């Protein structure tokens, strides 16, 4: 009788130990990076610089949480930048601004996130009902929402004059940047959703075996749409907050974020194939990327090379993930 493929008790062989350690690698890498840069460049480890990094990673953190659920399910969302653009303009035009007489304050923030959630809903419905792959749908939604943002922007981007919103975007509470506080709250929310709700657990299930989930009769489409809505909601929040920081609504408010977010999520350990990873991992990845970027600037590397580095990181991580799964008959498109 042929013995089946046994995975022995964990930790009993070097290979198994390596398996155990793998999820911790991104965190270890982050710690090593911090130490490395701290030693190489004295200016790096100051509290001033660290809070700056925290402030700069706030928006990416918010985006990463939203994107994580979509990627956990095995889909992808390329529309972040367009969503941010649309919500940025919506936000800028609904709070006290230079273009119209509205002064909705916090409700403006709510409206912007609602717009983001609506765009996410659109993406989710299109991909589940029309059965068009998510990369195609979100590419289209990116384009459409970017166009809508352009329309809203008109000749002159609206300036934000609401002092409370500007304080939210620029200010600090007890030395901690406000935006970073929001980001931490979002990460916690994401973690709770992922580990304690059906939305989170079913996202893992969908990523790990969607055909099985459908076979068993689970409401897969419902949770897929929810993931896109959540990603859109957080994208809207991010767009509004970034606008609060820079003081105007602008179509380029999300420039470069799509790429950076996917890179961050991927190097944190969330697999692009779905079913593996999570919110905390994505947070680690985001911080790692932020520190890497900051460190590179400190050390004198061309900031334009960032995009190239990000691309290389995505490729290397994908390689690491799929290499052990190679199989002659595996059809990959």
């Amino acid at each position, binding site marked *: *009788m*042929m*013995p*089946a*493929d*046994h*995975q*022995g008790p*964990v930790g009993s062989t070097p290979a198994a130990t390596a398996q155990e350690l793998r999820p911790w690698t991104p965190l270890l890498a982050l710690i090593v990076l911090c130490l490395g840069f701290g030693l190489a460049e004295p200016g790096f480890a100051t509290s001033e610089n660290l809070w700056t990094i925290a402030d700069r990673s706030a928006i990416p953190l918010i985006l990463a949480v939203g994107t994580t659920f979509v990627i956990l399910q095995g889909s992808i969302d390329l529309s972040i930048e367009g969503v941010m653009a649309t919500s940025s303009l919506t936000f800028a035009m609904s709070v006290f601004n230079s273009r119209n007489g509205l002064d909705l304050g916090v409700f403006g923030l709510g409206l912007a996130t609602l717009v983001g959630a609506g765009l996410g809903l659109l993406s989710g419905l299109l991909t589940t009902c029309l059965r068009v792959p998510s990369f195609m749908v979100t590419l289209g939604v990116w384009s459409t929402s970017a166009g809508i943002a352009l329309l809203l922007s008109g000749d002159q981007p609206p300036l934000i004059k609401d002092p409370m919103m500007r304080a939210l975007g620029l200010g600090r509470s007890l030395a901690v940047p406000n935006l970073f506080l929001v980001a931490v709250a979002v990460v916690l929310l994401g973690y*709770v959703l992922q*580990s*304690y*709700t*059906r939305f989170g*657990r079913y996202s*893992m*299930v969908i*990523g*790990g*075996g969607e055909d*099985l*989930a*459908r*076979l*068993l*009769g*689970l409401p897969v489409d419902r949770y897929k749409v929810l993931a896109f809505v959540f990603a859109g909601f957080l994208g809207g929040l991010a767009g509004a907050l970034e606008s609060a920081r820079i003081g105007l609504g602008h179509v380029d408010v999300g420039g470069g974020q799509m790429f950076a977010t996917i890179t961050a999520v991927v190097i944190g350990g969330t697999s692009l194939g779905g*079913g*593996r990873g999570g919110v905390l991992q994505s947070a680690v990845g985001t911080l790692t990327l932020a520190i890497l970027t900051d460190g590179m600037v400190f050390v004198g590397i061309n900031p334009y090379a960032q995009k190239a580095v990000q691309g290389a990181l995505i490729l290397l991580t994908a390689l690491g993930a799929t290499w052990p799964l190679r199989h*002659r*008959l595996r059809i990959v498109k």
Partner: protein
Amino acid sequence: MTVPVLRVEGLSKSFAGVRALDDVSIEVGSREVIGLIGENGAGKSTLLKVLAGVLRADCGRIIVRGTPISPANVAAAATSGIGIVFQEQALLPNVTVAENILLGHERRALRGGFYDWRKFYALAAKQLDKLGGGISPSALTATLSFAERQLVEIARALAIEEHTRHEPIILLDEPTSMLDANGTETVLGQIERLRRRASIVFVSHRLDEVVRVSDRICVMVDGRCVATRNRATCSIADLERLMLGHKLDAECQQQAPSPTLGPKVRLSVRALGRNNSYRGVSFELHAGEVLGIAELAGSGGESLCRTLFGVERADAGEIVIDGQPVRLREPADAVRLGIGYVPAERRLEGIVGGLGVRENMTLAHLDELRRGPFIDLAAERKLVKSWIERMHITTPTADTPAQDLSGGNQQKVVLGKWLIGRKLKILILDHPFRGLDVGIKAEMFALIREIARAGLGVLLVGDTVEEVMALSHSIIVMKDGLVSGHFPASAAKPSRLQVLERMV
């Protein structure tokens, strides 16, 4: 007599013209274990899949405790009280054991929409305890061994007890086929435990296991349930005879003529092995010989064929073609060496549905139809036309999409794809007669005999013992990955029973 817990009446199901289930009627009583046996393609798996909600029957009724049901999916079947443990593992590897057990039925462990993990694990542990425990509900499913995962699947089926108020009906589809002796003992022990609180339908190709645990045994042949026996009143020999009892086609009954085997050894296989599939396989295939492999599904024959075609990699042993050892990295390598392969899954792996008959038939050998770098369309059309006539392929035109043809004609196209090649030496046929009607079968039988006479070496894995015996000059019997019997061409012809008893 008490109301049977499960009653099936007149269930029928066809796939693309093949009758997988033909008016099946069975009854399962409370706390009864029914063993279901039959050859490949007899319909056992299909029946279980219909009962479990994976497939919909074309007609017939399923009645659970007096209420007719028609489950749309597995969750619906579970709500009605039927749970299934698939032969192929149906667990999600990246979540915890507890989540797999309670998948779709988490409501009782939720508090205000949030997971109460302690309660979750407790509920799961309850099911695992019914099986003797030993597996932690919080473990990640991917870290479990195969046998442990099997137990989790059974636990999931058992969890039905909590959702309905009755004892569940548990369907076990070949639960022991992938396990070693220890694992098998565990599962059989579990069945003994389960029968005190559930009704069980147990499918296995190992007759000794079936006889050991079942109360009654139902024999399926060609989609029908032909006999039901009480365990006490039948023997394994009886069951074997019943399994073979389908009407034999005239072609099948005709024994293969004595071969004039050339001395040339086309293919030589030495101690070939592939982890978890087969081990220690050695044989020689001569020019003009038809070598048949008789086996029940999952015994390694199919995997062996795929190894010889470069689809799967061997972990041990050697493949020698025309005296030269070869390494096959992909199917293209095998084709260059003159090997052809007719796969079992015609629709997925045999034809390219959207391409026409002509383009399908020349796909493997376009390099032989070239004029310079270009395809010689005129020569191609002419060649294909002659082969369509020769093989009597029924198609409106030579450019009709292959998916529009009937199954039998599709299979002819697949066969033609290889025969068209001028350098073909070895042809591997993997369950080639699946789903073909008698007429086409007869034509293909004749074709295969013809090409063998022309000097080709043919390796055949057949669905039934009859097919293998009718066509083959020599026969290898495989069971559970090992060669359990070898009847070379030079020796005396074996009887059907002799072959079958080595298969089971």
